[in-house]
Structures are given as C-alpha cells and as structure tokens.
C-alpha cells in the first residue's frame, strides 16, 4: 500500500510543488498585500475621522472583524478561483500539466495554499495591518477602532465556514476555463434559486390544502404548533434535523468538491 501511495504522493515532491506555487506568485501576492494594507489603513482612518467629526471618541468595535471577513471570503474566493488558471492556458497549461508531479499532489498543493494557507496567512497579515492602522489612528486622532483579535471565536468560526465554501470555488477554478470566479458565483446563485424553486414546488404539492393564495398556514396540522414552539426555544426534532443537515452539509461539501475537482484536473487536456 505504502509504495503504491508513494507513486502518487511523495512528501518531498509535494513540498517542492508548494514552494513553486508560493514562490511563483510572490510578486503579485506582494502587490495585492500592499494594496489591501493601504486600503485598510485608509478606510480605518476615514471611519475614525467620521466618528470624530460626529463628536464621538469611541471607535467601532467590530470594524476590523467586518473588514477581515471581506478579505477572507471575497479575497479568498477570488484567489481560489485563480488557482488552476495556469492549467487552462495554452503554453502555461502544457508546462504545468507536464510538471513531474501527480494530479493528487498538484490538487493538494493548490488546496492547501488557497484554504488553510490563505486563511492563516490572511489572519497574520490582517492582524499586523490592523495593528499598524490603529497605531496610526491613535497617533493622528488620539483614539481608534478596536484592535483586531485573531483569536476571537467569530474569526475562528469564519475561517471554518471559509474552508467549506472555498472548496466550491476551488472546484470552479479547475472546472471552468475562463472567468472561474464569476461562473462559480453564477452557478451557486442558479443552484440556490433551483433548490428554492424545487422546495417551494414540493411544499405546494405536499401541503396543497394549507396554502391560501401565496401564503401557507400549517397551524392546523396536529402537533405542528408544539414543534414550532420547541424549535423557537432551540430544542425538539426540527432543531435536531436542522443540526444534522447542517453538519452533513458542512462536513460533506468540501470532500465532495475536492474529489470532483481532483477528477477534473486529471481530465484536463490542452
């Protein structure tokens, strides 16, 4: 088993791929980091200035968490969507696909850099930028927004959600030849709309007699009021079903996307 696995995954070769992925794009990464740092410092200063003009001397408590969430999700999805662009371009694709490493190693390298790598990197980077921006605010205005706390449970929770959602964009990156971000976003919207439509149609069929025009009233179903009351208090079967579905969704989405993405990478022809 070990020698067979070694053929498709060698730690030394994987490490070299990681190094290549990071070193190959370091210039654009530095440019992007400088742009983000400048934007954060400017927006933070403008926010504090606005607060001061309004006569207050208390900065925003959630300012940096909100801004970091944008950097994590929007920035991460865009970076992820560009991950496999090189495999789809003519000369670049030939170079990348004939690079001596297995598809598993190539996929795992992109996955690691755009998921955990991006999340950790962005936390460290943002903590430093937020500290610098708040230092500047305090020097100029005498007060500032709350510092960014990378160990805040909301940050850790956001990273968890990012790791799941990011897998969909990684699949989009390997799936689409061009404009992967927009196409993945569009596909997600289409799927969400489709699911909502099917759910509404199913509801309409199953509970047809409870529909009054476009509205639905389930209160005359025996036991529904009690179930609804329990759910509003955070217990009961509806809450359990919701929890199970959430766990299945969160735990299942990423592995399914990774597996399909890996298969797709194996199939790319240039």
């Amino acid at each position, binding site marked *: 088993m070990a020698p067979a696995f070694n053929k498709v995954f060698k730690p030394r070769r994987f490490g070299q791929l990681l190094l290549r992925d990071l070193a190959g794009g370091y210039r654009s990464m530095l440019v992007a980091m400088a742009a983000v740092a400048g934007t954060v410092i400017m927006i933070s200063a403008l926010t504090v200035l606005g607060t001061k003009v309004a006569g207050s001397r208390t900065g925003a408590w959630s300012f940096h968490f909100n801004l970091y969430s944008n950097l994590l999700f929007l920035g991460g999805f865009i970076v992820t969507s560009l991950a496999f662009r090189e495999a789809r371009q003519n000369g670049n694709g030939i170079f990348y696909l*004939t690079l*001596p490493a*297995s598809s598993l190693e190539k996929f795992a390298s992109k996955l690691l850099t755009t998921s955990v790598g991006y999340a950790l990197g962005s936390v460290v980077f943002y903590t430093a930028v937020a500290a610098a921006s708040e230092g500047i605010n305090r020097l100029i205005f005498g007060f500032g927004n709350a510092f960014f706390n990378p160990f805040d449970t909301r940050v850790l929770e956001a990273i968890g959600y990012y790791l799941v959602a990011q897998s969909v964009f990684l699949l989009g990156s390997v799936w689409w030849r061009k404009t992967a971000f927009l196409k993945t976003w569009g596909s997600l919207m289409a799927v969400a709309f489709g699911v909502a439509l099917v759910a509404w149609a199913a509801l309409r069929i199953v509970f047809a007699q409870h529909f009054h025009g476009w509205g639905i009233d389930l209160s005359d179903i025996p036991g529904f009021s009690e179930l609804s009351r329990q759910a509003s208090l955070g217990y009961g079967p509806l809450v359990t079903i919701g929890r199970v579905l959430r766990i299945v969704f969160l735990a299942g989405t990423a592995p399914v996307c990774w597996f399909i993405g890996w298969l797709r990478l194996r199939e790319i022809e240039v």
Partner: protein
Amino acid sequence: MIEIKEMAFGYKRQKLFDGLDLFLEPGNIYGLLGKNGAGKTTLLKLICGLRFPQAGECRVMGYQPQNRAAGMLEDVCLISEELYVPPIAPALFERLYAPFYPRFDHGVFVEHLREFEIDASKKLSEMSYGQKKKFLLAFGLAARTRLLLLDEPTNGLDIPSKSQFRKALARSTTGDQLVLISTHQVRDMENLIDPIIILDEGKVIFQESMDEAAKRLSVSIEREQPTDAGVVFSDKTLGGYVVVRESAAGAENRVDLETLFNTVIASRERVRAIFGGGAAGKGA
C-alpha cells in the same frame, strides 16, 4: 519506449489519427515531419499525456500517458512551440523546477546556458522568444529525461543558435534517451534527425533511417524533365529538375531531407513499394 497501436484521435470537426501505429526505440533522434495540420504537435501531446487517445493504445515507458503519472513525467520533457516561462530569474527557475527531475545535471545546465549566451541576471519573462527557447532547451537537455520531445525547436532561433542547438543536442543525447523532434525546418535538422517519420492523413506513411533512404533512392539534378518509368519523383528547381529514382542495388547516395519528404508525400505508394511496405511505419 513508445508503443502506439491502432490509436485514434480527432478534434470536434476533424479526425486526425485513425489506426495510427508507431514504435520508437531509445538511442535515436527521430525527426517527425508532416504537412501543416498533419498532427505532429498533437502526436507529441498524446505521447506526454496532454491529449487522450479516443481508441487504441499509447504506452510510453510502460505507462499510459493520459494518467500523467509522476513516474513517467519525471522522465519526459516537452519543449513546446507555445513557450511559457514564469517571471523569475534563471537561478530561481532552476531552484524551483530542477528538483522535479531526478537526473537533472546542474553542470550541464550551466554549460548550455553559457553556450547559448543566456543572460542569467535577466528575468525569463523579459527575454526574447529565442532566448526563452534557448533557456528551456538548456533546461530540457540538463534534465536528462529519457524522453525529450521538441516541437519546432529551431523556430525563433538565430543562425548561430541553430548551430549551437544542433551541437548541444548531439553532444548531450545518451544511448538510453529518445529524442523526438517535430519540425518543418528540415534544413536546420539535416544530419541531426535520423530516423525520419512522416505523418500524413492520420497515418505514419514513412519511418526509415537516412541510411536506408540513401540506399534505396538516388537523387540527381537533370536539365530536362525526365519521363522514364524509373522516376519516383521530380520537381523543378533552379537550373533543372531534382529527380528521385530507385537506387541501383548497393549504391550509396545522398538524399536531402526536403527532397525525401517531398518524394514520400508525392509518391506514397511508389515509395512504399521501394521500401518493401515497411515505409508505412516500422511494425505497422
């Protein structure tokens, strides 16, 4: 090293190969010739797993190329006509990419860079097309992969570089290596590529060594257009006609690549008969 049996491949609107057979052995620098659109580049892509056969079999060093196994790729180097180089310096390129090739030889790489007069301080993306190509050729030769695939290697090279390339390739190639060069620039490859493979209409229509071609065909320049039955091919040229005839037994002639190619394309059946049917691909 390369075994292709009954392979079929085509694009959406064009069938390219149908029942293609090809067997290639190490220790040779094969020349792959064909008209535009004959499928030379596609064949190279099929051999290194960038395109997948639609039927038949293609095996390279025992691997199925479409699996793109790392074990196969570390012994295959394709220098494509569509060049890509990352925007980094040559030294960083070597640091990032050489470890993927277990037999990479730093000394050979440095030697070729010097020979090709590559400015090592310049970023690869800032180099001219010819310089990029020379850099990748130097890297490909230093990688010492058992299979080296070159697609139009002399396109974009200046006159001294073409000669340097020929010398470097002839010097670097070892007995366990197979080099397959796809080219239209037959004059650049004269005395380098041997045997010759000619692709046409989805098949290998000629696969012979230059020695064999020189034994079986004779080329002469004649003032008048010949009309005798012994003529395999004739073509008007400056000051007369290039005439190709079946050679008398045992006679040794010199056949240039361009004339050989034109003869094979124009008189396929006749050439096949002269080469005893073997001209349509060894083992086909």
